[in-house]
C-alpha cells in the first residue's frame, strides 16, 4: 500500500513538472507572434518614403520568423504590396515572400493565390521576375500537390512571351523545376490543359537572348535531373546550339548533348553529307571532342570533363582522340612517340637525334587529308596541350576514367600521360602521376617510357616524388634493364633527397616483390659479389645499401633460388634487417635456418582465428564473472587487461579491438577499486587523503571514456551508449566523493542539479538504446529519477552510492571494424645534438612530418602541441592543405611549426606532439529538440578537449639573445 501511495505521489509530481514546461512554451508564443507582424505593420505604416519602407523591410529580413507567425507577416506584406507604388519596395516584398515561404514548418499553399494574383497586375519586369522566383520557391515547397504545380506551369507559360529576358529566364526555370513528369498524372488533373513542357522549353532554344537560351537548356537539364526522360529529338536541337556565339550557351549545350547521349547511346543517327549512320553516343562523343578546341576555355573544360564519363563510346572513336596525323610538306610524318616505339622494338638504344631524323616519309594524297575532322581526332592531344591548366587537368582526369574502362586505350594513352609529367604546373604533373597509378594495372611500361618517368624523380617537389614512388610501387616493368634503371634512379634520388628514405624503401619493396624473376639476374651485380673473391662487407647503416637489400629480399620471397647467390654477410644483414625493419623485409625460407619457416608460416588465415577466439573467450570470461567476490573480479580484470594488451602488440589486426576492450575493462577496474576504498566506511572528514584516490579514479575514467569515444574509428552507436554510461558512472562517483569530502550543502546543490541534468540528457539522447541497458546503473537511476528530483543532495548521494555498488557490469559489444587512431612523427627525429639556434623574439620554422592512421577528418581534429621547458604549451592548428591522403585510413601531415621564445642561457629541449581534438557534440545523435533550438545548449553537450595520440618528440632549440 505504501508503495502504491508513493507511486501516486510521484505521478503527481511529474505532472507538475510538465505543466511548468508547457506554460513557458505558451508564454513564448504569445509574446513573439503578434509582436513580429504588428511591429512590421507599424513600421511600414510609419514609412513616409519608399526608401524608408525599404529600410524597414531590410531590417525585418535580418531576423528569422517562426513558422506560426509567417502567415500573419505574409498578409501584412501583401497588404502593403497592393498599396505600394515604388517598384523597388515591391521587389523587396516579393523576395521576402519567397524567403518566408521557405520557412520550415510553413505550408505556403495559402499564399499562392495571392502571389498569382499580384503577378497578373504587375508591370515592372524586375518585380515580375522576382514574383516568379517566389512562385518557384512555393512550388518546390509543395512537390506533391499536382494541381498547384499545374497552375504554376500555366502561369509560367503565360509569361514566356514577356519581352524581358529576366522574366523569360524565371519562367523557364519554373518550367524546369515544376514541369510535370508523367503524362498519366497530368490527365488526372482535369480542367488544365496538358502541356508538353519539353516542347515549350525546346522552343526557347532559339530565343534571341543568349541568357534565355542558356536558361532553356538549364531547364531541360533540370527536367532530366528530376527524372523526366528527354526526347531524342532534342539532340539535334542541342547540336545546333554547339555553334552558338555565346560561351554559356555552348557550355550548357555540351552538357545537354552528354545527357542525351547517355540516355540513347545505341540509337542510330545519320552523318550529314554522307549516307552513313553511326551510334548516337559516338556522334555525341565526336561533337564533344570537337568542343575541346573551342574558343572559350570554360567550354573546353566542360567538354574535356564530360569526355571522361562517356564509357559506351566505341573503341575506334576512342583511339582517334589520341591520333593526330602528322605531316610535313604534305608528307606523312611519324610522331615522336611512334619513333620512340620503333627505336625500342628494333632493339637499339637512343643514339641521339640526327638532323633529319624526323624527316617525313611517304607522300600524302592531298585529297585524303582532312584538316578539321568532324570526328574525335586528336581531341586529347589538343586538350593536353591547352593553354589553361584547368583544361589540361580536366583532360588528364578524363583520360584516366576512359583508360580505366578500356585496357587497350590505357596502353595507347600512356605516352601522352608520360609527357604530362613534364608539364609546367605542378598540379598537372601530380594529377597525371596519380592517373598513371590508377591505370597501372592495365599497362606495362616500356623502357623509354620508364626512362621519362624516372627522370621526374629528381623533381624538387616532395609531393611529386612521393607520388612517383607510389606509382612505381604498382608499375609493371618489362625488362631487367628497366629494374636496374629504376633502382639506379631511386638511389640517385636517395642521395639527393635523403628525407625520401622511407618512401624509397617502401617503393623498392613492392618493386622487388612484383618482379622477382627480373631481379634474379641482377643480384650478383647489385650485391657486388664475385665468383672467386670475397668483396668488402658493405656498411650496414648505408640507406642505399639497405634499399638494395630491401629490393632483393622482397624478390627472394617468391624466388627460392635467389638466396643461393647471397654471401655470408648478406644473411647476417638479413637477420638484422628482418628485426629492425620488419615491415619492409619479409620472412624468407633460408637454407639451414628452420626458425624462419616454422615461426611465421606464409599463410596467415589459420593464424588469425585462434587469436580472435582467445580474445572472445577472455572477454566472455570477464563478462560472466560479475557476481564473484570483488577480490576475484579485480584479479581477473587485471589479468585480462594484461592479456589483451599483449595480444594487441602481437596481432596488429586485432590491436584496435584489444585496446578498445582493455580500456573499457580498465575503466571498470578503476570503478571497482574506487568503490572498494575504505573511505565509504569511515566518517568523512578523516579520509581526505584516500578520497584523492577515488576522485583520481573518477577523473581517469572520464579521460579513458573520451579516448574510447574519439580515438577509435568505427565506433558505433551501441558502443557510444556504453561509453557514455561509463562516463555517467564516473560522474556519479565524482559527485559522491565530493559529497563525502566537502562540508556544507551549497556547492552540492549545484552539482546535484547538474548531474541530474546530465542523466536527463543521457536519457534523451539514447532513448532508443535504453532497453539494452537493463539492470544497469542508468536503468535503476531512471527508475528512481522522480524521487531524486525532489530529494535533498545528501539523499541523492546516498541513493547514488548504493546504486553504483549494485549496478552490474555492462557487456561491451565489439564493433566489426575498429581501429585506434595513431600518429608517428617522422620528422623531427629528435636525435640531433645540434640545437636549432635562432634569435629570441623571432620565429624559427620547424618542419613536422607525421603519418596519421585511422583518423577521421584530420583537417579539423589534428593539432600540434609544443611544450616549452617552462611549462608553456602552445597549440598549433595545421592548415587543411597540409594534410595529404595517400591511402584509405592513412593521412600524412607535412607542416611547419613556428617556435619562438625569449632568450635562454643554454639550449634546451621542447616537446612536440600531436593531439586529437574532440567535441562531445559531434557524436551524439541529434534529437529534434536540440535541432529546433528550444533547449539552450547545456554544459554537457559541448565538452571540448584534446587527447595526445602520438609519442612526443624532443627538439633541441636555443633562442639566442638579440645582438644590438
Amino acid at each position, binding site marked *: 500500500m505504501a508503495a502504491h501511495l508513493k507511486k501516486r505521489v510521484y505521478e503527481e509530481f511529474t505532472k507538475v513538472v510538465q505543466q511548468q514546461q508547457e506554460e513557458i512554451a505558451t508564454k513564448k508564443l504569445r509574446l513573439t507572434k503578434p509582436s513580429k507582424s504588428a511591429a512590421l505593420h507599424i513600421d511600414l505604416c510609419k514609412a513616409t518614403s519608399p526608401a524608408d519602407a525599404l529600410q524597414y523591410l531590410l531590417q525585418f529580413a535580418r531576423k528569422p520568423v517562426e513558422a506560426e507567425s509567417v502567415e500573419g507577416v505574409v498578409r501584412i506584406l501583401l497588404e502593403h504590396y497592393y498599396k505600394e507604388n515604388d517598384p523597388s519596395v515591391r521587389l523587396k516584398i516579393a523576395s521576402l515572400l519567397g524567403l518566408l515561404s521557405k520557412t520550415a514548418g510553413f505550408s505556403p499553399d495559402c499564399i499562392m493565390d495571392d502571389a498569382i494574383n499580384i503577378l497578373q497586375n504587375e508591370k515592372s519586369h524586375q518585380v515580375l521576375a522576382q514574383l516568379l522566383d517566389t512562385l518557384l520557391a512555393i512550388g518546390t515547397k509543395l512537390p506533391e500537390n499536382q494541381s498547384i504545380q499545374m497552375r504554376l506551369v500555366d502561369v509560367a507559360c503565360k509569361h514566356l512571351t514577356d519581352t524581358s529576358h529576366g522574366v523569360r529566364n524565371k519562367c523557364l526555370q519554373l518550367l524546369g523545376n515544376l514541369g510535370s513528369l508523367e503524362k498519366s498524372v497530368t490527365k488526372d488533373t482535369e480542367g488544365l490543359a496538358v502541356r508538353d513542357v519539353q516542347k515549350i522549353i525546346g522552343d526557347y532554344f532559339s530565343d534571341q537572348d543568349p541568357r534565355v537560351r542558356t536558361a532553356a537548356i538549364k531547364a531541360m537539364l533540370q527536367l532530366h535531373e528530376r527524372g523526366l526522360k528527354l526526347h531524342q529529338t532534342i539532340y539535334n536541337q542541342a547540336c545546333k546550339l554547339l555553334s552558338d556565339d555565346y560561351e554559356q550557351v555552348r557550355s550548357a549545350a555540351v552538357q545537354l548533348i552528354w545527357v542525351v547521349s547517355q540516355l540513347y547511346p545505341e540509337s542510330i543517327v545519320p552523318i550529314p553529307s554522307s549516307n552513313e549512320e553511326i551510334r548516337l553516343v559516338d556522334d555525341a562523343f565526336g561533337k564533344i571532342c570537337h568542343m575541346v578546341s573551342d574558343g572559350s576555355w570554360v567550354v573546353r573544360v566542360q567538354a574535356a570533363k564530360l569526355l571522361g564519363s562517356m564509357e559506351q563510346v566505341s573503341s575506334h572513336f576512342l583511339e582517334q582522340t589520341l591520333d*593526330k596525323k602528322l*605531316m610535313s*610538306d604534305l608528307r606523312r610524318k611519324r*610522331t615522336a612517340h611512334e619513333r620512340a616505339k620503333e627505336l625500342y622494338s628494333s632493339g637499339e638504344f637512343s643514339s641521339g637525334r640526327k*638532323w633529319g631524323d624526323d624527316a617525313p616519309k611517304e607522300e600524302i594524297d592531298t585529297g585524303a*587529308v582532312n584538316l578539321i575532322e568532324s570526328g574525335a581526332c586528336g581531341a586529347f592531344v589538343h586538350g593536353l596541350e591547352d593553354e589553361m591548366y584547368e583544361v589540361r587537368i580536366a583532360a588528364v582526369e578524363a583520360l584516366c576514367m576512359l583508360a580505366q574502362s578500356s585496357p587497350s586505350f590505357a596502353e595507347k594513352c600512356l605516352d601522352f600521360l608520360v*609527357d604530362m609529367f613534364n608539364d609546367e604546373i605542378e598540379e598537372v604533373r601530380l594529377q597525371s602521376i596519380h592517373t598513371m597509378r590508377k591505370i597501372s594495372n592495365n599497362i606495362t611500361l616500356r623502357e623509354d617510357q620508364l626512362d621519362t618517368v624516372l627522370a621526374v624523380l629528381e623533381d*624538387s617537389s616532395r609531393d611529386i616524388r612521393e607520388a612517383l614512388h607510389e606509382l612505381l610501387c604498382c608499375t609493371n616493368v618489362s625488362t631487367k634493364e628497366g629494374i636496374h634503371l629504376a633502382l639506379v634512379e631511386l638511389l640517385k634520388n636517395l642521395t639527393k633527397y635523403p628525407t625520401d628514405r622511407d618512401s624509397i624503401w617502401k617503393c623498392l619493396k613492392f618493386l622487388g616483390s612484383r618482379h622477382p624473376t627480373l631481379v634474379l639476374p641482377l643480384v650478383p651485380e647489385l650485391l657486388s659479389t664475385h665468383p672467386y673473391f670475397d668483396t668488402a662487407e658493405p656498411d650496414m647503416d648505408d640507406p642505399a645499401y639497405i634499399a638494395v637489400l630491401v629490393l632483393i629480399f622482397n624478390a627472394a620471397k617468391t624466388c627460392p633460388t635467389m638466396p643461393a647467390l647471397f654471401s655470408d654477410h648478406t644473411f647476417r644483414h638479413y637477420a638484422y634487417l628482418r628485426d629492425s625493419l620488419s615491415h619492409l623485409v619479409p620472412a624468407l625460407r633460408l637454407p639451414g635456418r628452420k626458425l624462419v619457416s616454422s615461426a611465421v608460416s606464409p599463410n596467415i588465415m589459420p593464424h588469425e582465428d585462434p587469436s580472435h577466439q582467445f580474445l572472445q573467450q577472455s572477454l566472455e570470461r570477464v563478462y560472466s564473472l560479475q557476481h564473484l567476490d570483488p577480490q576475484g573480479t579485480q584479479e581477473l580484470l587485471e589479468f585480462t587487461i594484461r592479456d589483451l594488451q599483449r595480444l594487441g602488440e602481437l596481432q596488429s589486426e586485432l590491436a584496435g579491438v584489444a585496446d578498445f576492450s582493455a580500456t573499457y575493462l580498465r575503466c571498470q577496474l578503476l570503478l571497482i577499486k574506487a568503490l572498494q576504498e575504505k573511505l565509504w566506511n569511515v566518517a568523512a572528514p578523516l579520509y581526505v587523503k584516500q578520497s584523492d584516490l577515488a576522485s583520481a579514479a573518477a577523473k581517469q575514467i572520464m579521460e579513458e571514456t573520451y579516448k574510447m569515444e574519439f580515438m577509435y574509428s568505427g565506433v558505433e552507436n551501441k558502443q557510444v551508449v556504453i561509453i557514455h554510461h561509463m562516463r555517467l558512472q564516473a560522474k556519479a562517483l565524482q559527485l559522491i566523493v565530493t559529497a563525502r569530502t566537502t562540508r556544507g550543502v551549497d556547492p552540492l546543490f549545484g552539482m546535484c542539479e547538474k548531474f541530474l541534468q546530465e542523466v536527463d540528457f543521457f536519457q534523451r539522447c539514447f532513448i532508443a538504446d535504453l532497453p539494452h541497458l537493463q539492470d544497469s546503473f542508468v536503468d535503476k537511476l531512471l527508475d528512481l529519477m522522480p524521487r531524486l528530483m525532489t530529494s535533498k543532495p545528501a539523499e541523492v548521494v546516498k541513493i547514488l552510492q548504493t546504486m553504483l555498488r549494485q549496478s552490474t557490469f555492462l557487456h561491451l559489444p565489439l564493433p566489426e571494424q575498429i581501429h585506434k587512431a595513431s600518429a608517428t612523427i617522422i620528422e623531427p627525429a629528435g636525435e640531433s645534438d645540434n640545437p636549432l639556434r635562432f634569435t629570441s623574439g623571432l620565429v624559427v620554422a620547424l618542419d613536422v612530418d607525421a603519418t596519421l592512421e585511422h583518423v577521421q577528418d584530420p583537417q579539423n581534429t589534428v593539432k600540434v602541441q609544443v611544450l616549452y621547458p617552462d611549462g608553456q604549451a602552445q597549440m598549433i592548428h595545421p592548415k587543411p592543405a597540409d594534410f595529404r591522403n595517400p591511402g584509405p585510413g592513412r593521412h600524412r601531415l607535412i607542416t611547419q611549426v613556428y617556435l619562438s621564445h625569449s632568450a635562454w642561457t643554454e639550449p634546451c629541449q621542447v616537446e612536440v606532439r600531436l593531439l586529437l581534438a574532440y567535441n562531445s557534440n559531434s557524436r551524439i545523435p541529434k534529437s529534434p529538440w536540440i535541432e529546433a533550438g528550444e533547449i539552450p545548449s547545456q554544459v554537457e553537450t559541448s565538452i571540448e578537449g584534446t587527447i595526445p595520440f602520438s609519442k612526443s618528440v624532443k627538439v633541441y632549440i636555443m633562442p639566442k639573445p638579440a645582438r644590438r
Partner: protein
Amino acid sequence: MPEIRVTPLGAGQDVGRSCILVSIGGKNVMLDCGMHMGFNDDRRFPDFSYITRNGRLTDFLDCVIISHFHLDHCGALPYFSEMVGYDGPIYMTHPTQAICPILLEDYRKIAVDKKGEANFFTSQMIKDCMKKVVAVHLHQTVQVDEELQIKAYYAGHVLGAAMFQIKVGSESVVYTGDYNMTPDRHLGAAWIDKCRPTLLITESTYATTIRDSKRCRERDFLKKVHETVERGGKVLIPVFALGRAQELCILLETFWERMNLKAPIYFSTGLTEKANHYYKLFITWTNQKIRKTFVQRNMFEFKHIKAFDRAFADNPGPMVVFATPGMLHAGQSLQIFRKWAGNEKNMVIMPGYCVQGTVGHKILSGQRKLEMEGRQVLEVRMQVEYMSFSAHADAKGIMQLVGQAEPESVLLVHGEAKKMEFLKQKIEQEFRVSCYMPANGETVTLPTSPSIPVGISLGLLKREMAQGLLPDAKKPRLLHGTLIMKDSNFRLVSSEQALKELGLAEHQLRFTCRVHLHDTRKEQETAVRVYSHLKGLLKDHCVQHLPDGSVTVESILIQAAAHSEDPGTKVLLVSWTYQDEELGSYLTSLLKKGLPPAPSGGS
C-alpha cells in the same frame, strides 16, 4: 558596287617582307612594313612607289598597322616613314613599340657599320619614326577616323604579336600577322572571337604541316641538355636575341628549378639583356602560368641564368650557354663553338633553321671537318642536335582560327605558293568560303554586299513583336512601317509617326466597287442574304449586319441598293480602305460569283 581590294607588296606567295595594302570602304590601310632577309639591294624593301606615283603617301594611306616586332614585319618602317615620307598614324601594340626600335637599331648597325652601306636610315630616323606610333591595347577599339576602327587580338608568336581587325561600317578585314595556336612556355595561344569578318588575311607558313605535340620536343630538348650536363659536358645553344631565346630560357630555368640542378646557365649579353627587361615588364602578354605566378616571382627574373662573360667559356665543369647569333655564322656563338667543338662530351643544339652556307647548316648536314678562315681545319667532335621550336600555327591551327573567326572569305599570305595551293583547296572544301592567294603586286578585288543599318523605333518593334507569338531569330518577318531616309541615315517608323514628323495629314484611300446581283427581292432581304452567305463563308472574320441595312466584314462596308433601271438586279456597293485591299478584293470576287440560291425565299 562596294568592294574590298587587297594588294600584297610583299609576302604574297612568299615568306618575308610582309606588306599588304587593303582598301576597304574607301579607306586605305597598310598592314605591316617589313624587309626581306634574303636581299641586300632595293628588293629588300617593298616597292612603295606602287601606292602612289607622285603625291604624298600620307594623303593616300589612312593608317599603317604593324603586327609584331620581327624585322620581316617592321624592318622597312623608318625607310617608309622618313625616307619615302609618311606622316600618318602607325599602330602597334605596346610591347612591339618598345622592342621594335631596339631591333631596328641593331639591324641598322649591321647594315651600315658592318657592311658599310650608304643611303640607309639613321638612328635619328628610327626615333622620328617611332614618334608617329600610336600604341594600342588588346581588345581596345581604336577609332582611326570617324569610319575606320581597328582592334587588336592576342596572337601568341612573340611578345606583343597581335592580330588586327580593321572595320569600316559593316565590312571588316582581319589580318593575323604571324600567330601560334598552341601555347608555349611563355606565350599563350592566339585567340579571336566570332567576329565574322568579310575577309580574313592569314599567314600560311606551315600550310602543309601538322606538328607533333610540343611536349615531346620539350622533353627531348631537356633530356639532351640534362644528360650532357650530368656527364660534365658543356652545351651551346645558338639563338637569335628575341622570341625563341626567351622560350628556351624559361624552359631551362623551370627545369633547373624543378630538378634542383646546379650547373650554371649563361646568356650572352647585349641585345638579349635589354630584351629580357621588356619581357619582365609586359607580363600581361605572356601565358597563364607566368601571369599567375609573377606576384611571387617574375619568371623572367632568372635565378639560374646569368650574364655571360667571354672568360667563362674556358671555365672547367658543365655549363649551358645561350649565344647569338643563331646560325653560327659570326660573333660570340661561333667563338664559343670553336673552343668547344673538339670535345666529344660537349653538345651544340640548333633550335632553328639555318641558311645554306652558314656553319650551322654545315654541321647540321653532318659535316665533321670545317674549314675556317686562315685555312684552319676545325674538327667537330661535339654532338650536334637539332630541335625545332617554331611559333607559327600549323595547318590545323590555321583551320582552327578560320573556324573561330567564321570569315566570309579567306586570303593567304606569308607562305610558299605550292603549300598555299593545298591549304586554299582545303579551306574552300571545309568551310565553303572563297579563298585567295595573290602574288606580290597582284590585286584581289572582293565585291561586297554591305548591309545597311536601319534604325527602328522601339514602339514599332514592340508592336510587331507582340503580334508574333513564338520567337524565331532566323526567320525573316514582314513588317509594316515607313522608311525615312534623312541625312544619310535610315529609320523605320510607324506610318502615324512618319506623318507626324513630316507634318502631313493622313489621307485615306478607299476603293469602291459595284457588284450586280440578279435578285428580285427587296434590298433588305438581299442584304440579309449577303450577310448569311458571308457569315457562312468567312468563319474567322467578324461579319456584322448593321441596323441601317448594310453589312460589314471587318472594316469593309457592303450596301445593297436597287438598280435604278432594272428592278430585277440589285447593286451591291463594296467599299474598303487601302489597308484592307487583300480582303476587299477577295470579297468582291466572292460576291461576283453570285449568291447561292436562297433556301427560303425561292419557294
